[in-house]
């Protein structure tokens, strides 16, 4: 059985888009050591994206020639980097989710051997991403007053995009409600240790629940794609 197309595209787009956003940090990180760390995470994600997209077709055609409405990544990963706290909050929310999901997929939650193998490899990478995000969440949350308030703002601001993470993806046999519960438990533990509180607002607005998976994105995503795709599209049929 070949990998379910909707599933590999959804997971592949998540990884592709987040990798792109992290790539925007190059040369801008708060400290040189963090340049190396963020690039490592971006490269892991790009590797995952390439494997996943290749399961659904030609990786470059899929990355560079689809229109915005055809991308099925969650809206969380397309959110602009903001300050370092925003990037860390996005990393914390997403990598915690991705690790839990890939753990389940590695256990055979897909019925597809290719996807199971990808998940088994990726889960180790993602565990490190989650570790990185947790360590920074602790340091920003429990660091200075400034860092605490920046981290709180970032967590609050991105909270509304987290509900979408647990909308079922066609082709993945996963207990999504259980995943959501475990995610919330882990996030709560980390935030409490970081002297932060779990944001209280709604986790998805009624008009946008699960929108990314259906190809409805936020405005910054269009500009991101325009930048990412312009060179490739300017030379139709060229190879690089």
């Amino acid at each position, binding site marked *: 059985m070949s990998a379910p197309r909707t599933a590999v595209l959804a997971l592949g787009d998540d990884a592709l888009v987040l990798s792109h956003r992290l790539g925007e940090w190059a040369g801008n990180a708060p400290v*040189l050591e963090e340049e190396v760390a963020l690039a*490592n995470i971006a*490269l892991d994600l*790009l590797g995952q994206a390439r494997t996943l997209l290749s399961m659904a077709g030609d990786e470059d055609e899929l990355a*560079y020639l689809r229109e915005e409405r055809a991308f099925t990544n969650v809206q969380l990963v397309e959110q602009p980097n903001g*300050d370092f706290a925003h990037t860390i909050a996005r990393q914390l929310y997403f990598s915690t989710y991705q690790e839990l999901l890939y753990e389940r997929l590695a256990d055979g939650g897909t019925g597809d051997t290719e996807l199971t193998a990808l998940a088994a490899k990726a889960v180790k990478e993602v565990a490190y991403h989650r570790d990185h995000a947790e360590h920074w969440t602790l340091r920003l949350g429990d660091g200075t007053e400034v*860092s605490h308030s920046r981290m709180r703002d970032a967590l609050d601001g991105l909270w509304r995009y987290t509900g979408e993470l647990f909308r079922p993806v066609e082709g993945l046999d996963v207990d999504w409600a259980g995943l959501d519960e475990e995610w919330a438990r882990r996030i709560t533990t980390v935030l409490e240790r970081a002297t932060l509180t779990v944001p209280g607002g709604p986790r998805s607005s009624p008009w946008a629940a699960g929108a990314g998976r259906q190809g409805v994105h936020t405005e910054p995503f269009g500009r991101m794609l325009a930048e990412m795709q312009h060179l490739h599209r300017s030379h139709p049929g060229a190879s*690089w």
Partner: protein
Amino acid sequence: MTTLLPEKDRGGGPGAHEEAGQEAYQEAFDAAIAADERIEPRDWMPDAYRATLVRQIAQHAHSEIIGMQPEANWITRAPSLRRKAILMAKVQDEAGHGLYLYSAAETLGVGRDELLDKLHSGRQKYSSIFNYPTLTWADVGAIGWLVDGAAITNQVPLCRCSYGPYARAMVRVCKEESFHQRQGYELLLALSRGTEAQHAMAQDAVDRWWWPSLMMFGPPDDASKHSAQSMAWKIKRHSNDELRQRFVDICVPQAESLGLTLPDPLLRWNEERGHYDFGPIDWSEFHEVLRGNGPCNEQRLDRRRRAHEQGAWVREAAAAYARKHGEQDGDGRTAA
């Protein structure tokens, strides 16, 4: 016995040696250099040797860090996912190389903050090559082939530099850089053999980067103020002109294989010398860029300063967290 703390924090710095017979130390140092031995951080060394190394290693480290910018400029627009991965890994390596080099400089008793401060305030330089803009995707290839090629020509001899930590950092850098030049060459080859527009893009990039690359070897030997002493100290192993010639000789046949031309009508093989002759370099341009009037000098430094300033609250937060928690949150694992 002393700790490994930088010189400035130590009790027995170079000053402690003064009474004990400067001459004996100078003799030991000269003998070590003559015997091709390495000088290590805690050895006595002449102040001028230390200062030269700090200046050179810092400038080298700054170049790696500033050098991330022109290439990072294309990460978000890389035209294939394969190229994107390569470029990200390369820019990451440059951050890593900067770190290796700052770490080598710190063994001489200068902190990284101090060096970054000098970079940000313009008191220390970085390689002028990075003050040129990357206008098209082909520039990423030209930087890999020509700029990294020139850098490698300069750096390979530095692996035998007399100062141990610098030489060791360069061994690591050179090992990792070997892919940088190749990916650039491969990128240009794909363009050169691609569509007409791609070929033109590649040629344009080579036209713009060729002369600045030749300037990377520094002023001609008769005008280079630091060269002679650096060679005597075996910090430098070959003169600027020697290395420049070596680079030209390597590039000419490589350009032919690429199907691209080098923008120098005077470039031709000289049977007698056994080298390629090449046209005169416009040193006025070099000095203008060095003086800060290149196309991107301000932009590069501004961006660097901004990243550093905007990161201050993050660095402070982590330091504050460490002070609050001491080591009690550490994993508590012992080394074994």
